[in-house]
């Protein structure tokens, strides 16, 4: 059984096709990077899988079952720019929101939920910021709050949209430690990633995407110069393939 299976996925904005004929599977307990140039449809893929965008066609199953949000097996970390940071709420409160699916209608968060949220804050080294309004946090701290929130969702499969963008080194390390811990616990993490240099180090599975699947498999097999060239076309000038000297 795979963590994610996508069959015959097509997505179009207005009249323009964004994703065409996406077929792929992502194995359980993997750390998967979705990699591709700008406009390749990486975020679109995640959003279409999770039903936030209309699909022209396609079947999605997660852990062998058609995707249904009510099963609560999916955690999602949006791009940092997608929420209103002026919202009247603090860090702890945002993390608690991850529990809302478990709490259910008409009920308030229990002591246990709050304890879980505090624990997640602590795990990401953020306990002293619990009462901060979220705008008053740095970019990396904001990202860590989002991750802590995904953590308390207690999901099986996590989708993260560019979690490493604009974060400091400390946060980057905290994130990658967390991803590895999740994997160890038997979870699957699927990450839209833009920094090619770190792909082999962080991820064991890679999906190369440019409007359709170019390649999909274990990172060491997929992350080759030829396939990357095929994904990025002529735009790969700044990148040197694994093994070569980093430059520029």
């Amino acid at each position, binding site marked *: 059984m795979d963590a994610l299976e996508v069959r015959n996925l097509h997505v179009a904005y207005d009249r323009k096709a964004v994703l065409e004929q996406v077929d792929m599977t992502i194995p359980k307990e993997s750390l998967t990077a979705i990699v591709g140039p700008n406009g390749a449809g990486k975020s679109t893929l995640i959003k279409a899988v999770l039903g936030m965008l209309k699909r022209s066609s396609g079947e999605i199953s997660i852990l062998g079952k058609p995707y249904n949000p009510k099963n609560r097996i999916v955690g999602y970390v949006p791009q940092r720019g997608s929420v209103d940071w002026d919202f009247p*709420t603090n860090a702890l409160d945002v993390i608690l*929101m991850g529990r809302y699916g478990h709490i259910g*209608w008409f009920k308030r968060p229990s002591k246990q939920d709050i304890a879980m949220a505090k624990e997640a804050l602590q795990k990401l080294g953020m306990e002293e910021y619990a009462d901060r309004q979220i705008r008053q946090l740095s970019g990396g701290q904001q990202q860590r709050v989002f991750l802590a929130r995904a953590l308390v969702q207690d999901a099986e499969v996590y989708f993260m949209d560019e979690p490493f963008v604009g974060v400091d080194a400390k946060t980057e390390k905290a994130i990658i430690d967390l991803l590895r811990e999740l994997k160890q616990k038997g979870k699957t993490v699927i990450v839209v990633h833009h920094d090619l240099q770190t792909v082999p180090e962080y991820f064991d599975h890679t999906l190369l995407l440019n409007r359709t699947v170019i390649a999909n498999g274990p990172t060491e097999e997929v992350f080759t110069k030829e396939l990357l060239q095929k994904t990025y076309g002529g735009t790969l000038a700044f990148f040197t393939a694994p093994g070569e000297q980093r430059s520029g």
Partner: protein
Amino acid sequence: MTYEGWILLTACLVGISCGMVGCFLIVRRMTMLADAISHSILLGIVLAFLIANSLNGIYMLIGATVIGFVTTFAIQSLHNAGVQEDASIGIVFTTFFAIGVILISLFARDVHLDVEHALMGEIAFIPWNTQNILGFEIPKATAMLLCITIFALLIILLFYKELKLTSFDAALALTLGLPVTLIHYLLMGLVSITAVGSFDAVGAILVVSMLVVPGSCAYLLTDRLSMMLLYSCLFGISSAIIGYYGALLFDVSIAGSMSTASGILFLLTWIFSPRYSLLRRFLITAS
């Protein structure tokens, strides 16, 4: 209760119901939609009057709620069809409002409903039109507004968590399996009934200031949504009371004066708020 007492009570209920609902509009950046709905309900009220041939509150409530949903839906459909959002709002509500005004002038001239009423409400007449409820003589409009306020409060208390989450991060709400669209329409329904409840008191346009201004003041004072709701109601009540006495003092429209009072309160908050004020910004840059 005295004549003045009823007016003050009605005005305060407008402040409370609009203040509560308005907070969610502000944090969801949907105040323009509320502006559109409050203009459109004029058409709903006129149509309800023309169909039922009565100005009974229930018909008005139904007409306005229906037109509120139609407005929200029409704006959403135009937006989905590729019209940019501000333009789709601008098209829908001006058209509905225009049709409403034409219908009033053509068919409803000689009744209680007139254009001036739509503009500034007739809060001064509310205490004369009473109804016996449980042995009390209560003005009809006040009774309706009381029910609406309690209803809005209940909805907000019951669905507080869901309203908050869908406002902050609709994407997460979707992955948690919350009915995001349904909650959106629920809120728009609340806006419609609040607007129609306030219609008699402040009219279709000035209700916008009661929806948006108290919430904005509160937004500058606190970082917690629950406190923002509370402050917003307090600002709503203050605007109502100050507005009423201001209107008496200068012999002007009560609704207009309430709106002006809310504006003055905002100006003061804007300058002096301890957290997010002009003064604080100025002091920080100066030091």
